[in-house]
């Protein structure tokens, strides 16, 4: 639990993490994602509740060498080279000697920055800085990694590269929690999704489980028409037509029965169907259903 004045930032939110798991922590702006991350990292003085890491209850101020935190800001020194940044943070986290050199070399290789190791980071692109930012949080070989929006502001190629890096970590048994607003990324990459809103967990589980528990087994049926449906034509019950009057969507629960019935209704309304698409509910659908469409802070 954590309150800042009148705002309840964390209202009983609780999260568990298992070895080698990649968990996406999602939520609207101001939902409590960063507060949660900071609480696990020991940067928040909780009003109630505790953080347990490998069976050890952590007090505020306890060092957490098993934990690696990658902040949303690019927390690297612009006038130091990539190698110098990694070495500095490695030493500060207790890595020394030959082990430090090995870890720095690994981090440079893993983040694909080996060729630019001796260049000051002020000259790096946004994607390179992001990769180095992540690498600096991992140089001390943590078992648990918290990443706050690791792909913000980077191009698709860099984003892809970052997720390849995270996949390699998972393969080594590292547990990862990341926050992101890119729902399609979370849908594709994360084993488990945790949705937080107003400081409380509103959903947690694999995507299929979230869909069935939130939206049920319904599918979205989309019909594309060759010509706009006449204004006086009767739209089939339960269907939504767009402004161009050429796209009709509807939720269907029994694909075999409902699709045919729907097509017949459109033909009867003199609609010329040129394309049919059936899609399952997405994470975005679940997210909007759980958190609403209103704009947040």
């Amino acid at each position, binding site marked *: 639990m954590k309150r800042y004045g009148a705002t309840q930032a964390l209202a009983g939110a609780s999260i568990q993490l298992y070895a080698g798991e990649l968990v996406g922590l999602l939520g609207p702006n101001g939902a409590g994602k960063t507060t949660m991350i900071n609480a696990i990292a020991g*940067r928040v003085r909780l009003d109630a509740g505790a953080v347990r890491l490998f069976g050890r209850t952590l007090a*505020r*101020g306890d060092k957490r060498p098993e934990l690696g935190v990658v902040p949303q800001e*690019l927390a690297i*020194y612009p*006038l130091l080279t990539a190698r110098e940044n990694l070495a500095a943070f490695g030493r*500060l986290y207790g890595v020394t000697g030959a082990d430090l050199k090995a870890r720095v070399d690994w981090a440079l290789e893993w983040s694909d920055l080996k060729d630019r190791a001796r260049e000051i980071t002020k000259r790096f692109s946004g994607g390179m800085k992001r990769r180095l930012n992540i690498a600096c949080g991992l140089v001390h070989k943590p078992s648990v990694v918290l990443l706050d929006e690791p792909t913000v502001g980077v191009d698709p190629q860099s984003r892809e590269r970052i997720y390849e890096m995270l996949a390699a970590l998972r393969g080594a048994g590292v547990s990862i929690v990341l926050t992101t607003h890119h729902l399609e990324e979370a849908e594709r990459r994360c084993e488990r999704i945790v949705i937080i809103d107003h400081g409380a967990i509103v959903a947690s589980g694999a995507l299929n489980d979230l869909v069935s528990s939130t939206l049920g087994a319904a599918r979205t049926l989309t019909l594309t028409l060759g010509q706009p449906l006449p204004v006086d034509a009767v739209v089939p019950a339960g269907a939504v037509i767009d402004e161009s009057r050429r796209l009709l969507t509807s939720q269907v629960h029994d694909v075999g029965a409902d699709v045919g019935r729907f097509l017949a209704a459109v033909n009867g309304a003199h609609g010329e169907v040129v394309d049919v698409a059936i899609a399952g509910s997405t994470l975005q659908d679940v997210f909007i259903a759980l958190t609403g469409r209103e704009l947040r802070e």
Partner: protein
Amino acid sequence: MFGTLLRVAWTNFRRDRVALSLTFVLPVIFFSIFAGVFGNQRGSATRRIPVAVVDQDASEYSKALVAALEAEGALRVRTTRESEGRGGPLDRAGAEALVRDGDFPVAVVLPKGLGETRKFWGDTGTAAPRVQLLADVSDPIAPQVVQGLLQKVSFTAAPETMATAGLAMFEKYSGPLTSEQRASVDQWVSSMRRNRAAGSSGSNAAPAFGLPIDLVNVMQPGSGDTATISFYAAGIGVMFLLFSCAGAGGTLLEEEESGTLGRLISSRAGMSGVLAGKWLFIAMMGMLQLAVMFTWGALVFGLPLLPHIPGFLVMSAFTAAAAAAFGLVLATLSRTRAQLSGLSTIVILTMSALGGSMFPRFLMSETMQKFGLVTFNAWALDGYLKVFWRDSPLLDLWPQVLVLIGLTVAFLAAARMFARRWETV
């Protein structure tokens, strides 16, 4: 851990050319300006009081007076309309114009008949010509100095004239001298005239009349005005040290903004380690800054650094340590770089003015001197003055060192307290 923090700070610093210039070049430039303006003035015309002299009498006596004034080391005498002897003799109207225009603070007018009357004592009567001092009274010093020196040279410039006038007064009240007495007096007067003509002139010449006085420099025998250079080196040095330390402390705010501070706090360093590392680095840079400035002063302006190395090192170490801690206090109090800039400018300039960095404390009123002791600058400057001006032994620095140590501890404690807002929220 401290090694890593120092290495990171040093690498960031040496790759930041602007920071390097502000730390080492700017203070040297400022110090050079002050040293050039106020220091090393031996033989320079700018320190002497300029005085215009109008000799309306042109007698042997008035010429002797003018010559004696020109020989005074504290005066820069002009007797012509233009400088360097050009433009013909100066008249009263011209002298008055020089004073009114602010070119000269005082002018002396030796009236016609001065040499003839030569009255030094007794009833001069209203008819006797009087020397006039045309003065700019907004300068409280120059007219008084010139008046004093004029009275002095009236005794020393032509002693035979004074002796002759004195004997005339004696004869008036006691009766005429005998022929033998007259002969002795004439011999004595001739002797005085010969001695004067032989060139025993100048402000240090043994006077024929008046107390024999020797001016002995007990503070800096043989070093002349280099003590003034030392004062400005210390004053400017401490002021810029404070600015540099405040700026360096501001890297905490940059690190907070970039997120690197969060990384450092989460590491083995923790907030205490981060602050200690920063303090150590800033103090070392501060010492280096002072060393560069004083070395420059020694090489270019003759500042007597070498004989005072131990005292300089002691004062610089403790001054830099306290200034570094003070810089951290300012940084941890501020929320943004802009706030830090505004706060540090006001606080440091106020402290520097009260503490003697801009104007010597020993020239301030007693109340202001006491008030200045609340500032960091006052204690640091007093220590440097003890080293460079009074040649005090190292042990005599204990009050200043003790206060600076106390300030260091207090500032570090305050900075640690203010920095807690970054640790956990």
